[in-house]
């Protein structure tokens, strides 16, 4: 008789299967020590933390670009405003909403993070020095949104 062990996958893997980017989702959540014991809300909050980190990183990059690429000042100003909105409005709103059980406002904040990144990218009219960072934001926003949806 042959016994076959079927592994169902961890909670992280099961959750990430329902998002648009399994690999990104798994790598982000596994990189956080809280990931292995978190419930769905907890996983969402971890990803929002990642959004926050990426926002800060992007803002630093924007600041550095003012000197290197002064001709891009206008677009950089726009991006700076957009990313500050993610940091000061979207992220706190999402954290408060998910912690308190109104995930729909969390979804609003997470979606908006992706939108703000898009608008920033669009300001360079195809010649963006921030593409890999804005694309990251869009991807993380999509994955996070899918997880927040599970809370609704």
């Amino acid at each position, binding site marked *: 008789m042959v016994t076959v062990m079927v592994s169902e996958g961890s909670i992280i893997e099961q959750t990430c299967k329902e998002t648009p980017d399994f690999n990104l989702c798994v790598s982000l959540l596994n990189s956080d020590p809280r990931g292995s014991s978190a419930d769905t809300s907890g996983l969402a909050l971890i990803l929002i933390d990642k959004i926050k980190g990426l926002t800060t990183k992007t803002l630093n990059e924007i600041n550095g670009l003012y000197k290197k690429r002064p001709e891009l000042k206008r677009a950089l100003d726009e991006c700076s405003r957009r990313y500050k*909105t993610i940091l*000061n409005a979207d992220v706190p709103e999402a954290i408060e909403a998910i912690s308190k059980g109104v995930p729909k406002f969390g979804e*609003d904040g997470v979606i908006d993070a*992706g939108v703000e990144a898009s608008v920033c990218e669009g300001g360079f009219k195809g010649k963006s020095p921030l593409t890999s960072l804005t694309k990251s934001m*869009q991807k993380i926003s*999509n994955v996070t949104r899918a997880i927040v949806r599970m809370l*609704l």
Partner: protein
Amino acid sequence: MSASKLVSVLLLIVLINISNNGVDAFHKIFKKLQSQSTSLDSVSPLHRTAYHFQPPRHWINDPNAPMLYKGIYHLFYQYNPKGAVWGNIVWAHSVSKDLINWEALEPAIYPSKWFDINGTWSGSSTHVPGKGPVILYTGITENQTQIQNYAIPQDLSDPYLKTWIKPDDNPIVKPDHGENGSAFRDPTTAWFNKKDGYWRMLVGSKKKHRGIAYMYKSRDFKKWVKTKRPIHSRKKTGMWECPDFFPVSVTDKKNGLDFSYDGPNAKHVLKVSLDLTRYEYYTLGKYDTKKDRYRPDGNTPDGWDGLRFDYGNFYASKTFFDDKKKRRILWGWANESDTVEDDTLKGWAGVQLIPRTILLDYSGKQLVFWPIEEIESLRGKNVQMTNQKMEMGQRFEVQGITPAQVDVDVTFNVGSLEKAEKFDASFTTKPLELCNLKGSNVTGGVGPFGLITLATSDLEEYTPVFFRVFKDASTNKPKVLMCSDAKPSSLKTDTGSDAKQRMYKPSFAGFVDVDLADGKISLRSLIDHSVVESFGAKGKTVITSRVYPTKAVGEKAHLFVFNNGSQPVTVESLNAWNMQKPLKMNQGAK
């Protein structure tokens, strides 16, 4: 900025300096939550409404505890005093004598006790004989649990009910082990059952994917017990927020009924707001007070495809009974569909839509809605159009009024329905998909025809509100689609590759249950800069859209009637009125 707007802003600054006693009461109470507070004088006038309920700045959402007390109307609402996104929520409070001019008072309820320290969320008010108005609301505790509390006026002789106290015998209801403590909120107005002497009220909730409205009863409005069964629930609908439960008269076509009415000739309405879809739906049915059960009559879907108060941007609605004029009045909230950065820049987010009366339609199969008559007091200059025939492809401008701030009411006559397209149920029965497939510039048989609002003269930007008539072979009756389409509303867009990340410019649609026997159908739109509220067939189908044109603003906006169907349609009569700004609209609100 035009001269009159400059004056308004200056007046606002003066008023703020007079009324601001400099105390920010919330500094100590709230945790250090980030905020991007806007100073009053930097709120942008672009896209701000002229005659809709809004505070001067910051985020608003659900209308709370609307009521009439000692001849004064009250509206409370969820408000963030610190920024233009949801958060730090308090109950802001405004009063009015006419539902049009609003005076802002101090916030009535905000976190201050253990039972609401993390949030004072939505709720309702009930007139309790012997106690006066009692507010029931959801509080969030230290460990993020949702519980229900009550608050009472400090001074019943104050018609403005400025101060509310939250007694220490709160909460009145906590979630039990069967209930989900993160999905347990929005207590309704209570109704009184004379036969058993109990008050009853509902709390919205869910269990997995089943939306539920739990029911609680009380003799003294202090001790509440859960009833054996929830009043109603429905699988696969998701969380039920903001439930509302009230009777409508089957025979009286002019007046509403009090929440506690239990006489003959009435149906009940159960409405819920759907957390998952961000729209609402209602059913009509019978409330058996002896068995304490509500049963929908089954004529309309009980679920996501159900009838709606409004097929557009309209959420967290709440009704109250206006005892003075014997009306049931509906409040609803519309959020912004631009970006959060736009909201932060402009300094505000969210509006309350114009209050609407609710009655049962003559058919008995649905409700009908109409803006309260008081809104007509804002009407100014009137222009008219009569018997204007529109051939295919024609549009005629409505001139002489300010199209961005107008009330327009038009009756169309389509004549014969012979040319109506066949309604092919095989491709879709969903109105929204139909509207997406066949927009206002896709030609048709009878229709599309209607209004083109907030338009540039060459239609670079425009928001059409229109009808398209189909022939339903199975019933031999017309099937009328009404659509309010924000897709062409604004040149503003972002370049995100993912559709989810572009600026949100949705189409909204609903069917209109009319048989067009005399060829006529009416359309009324209240247009107010970034809001278009449209009432089809005298309120059988209502659709609200939010739009943000970049060019079709202020004096540069235009209003047209149009027809893109092969059947000529006549504008039998059109009336348009400039809408004035109310003298009072929450100036001085914190």
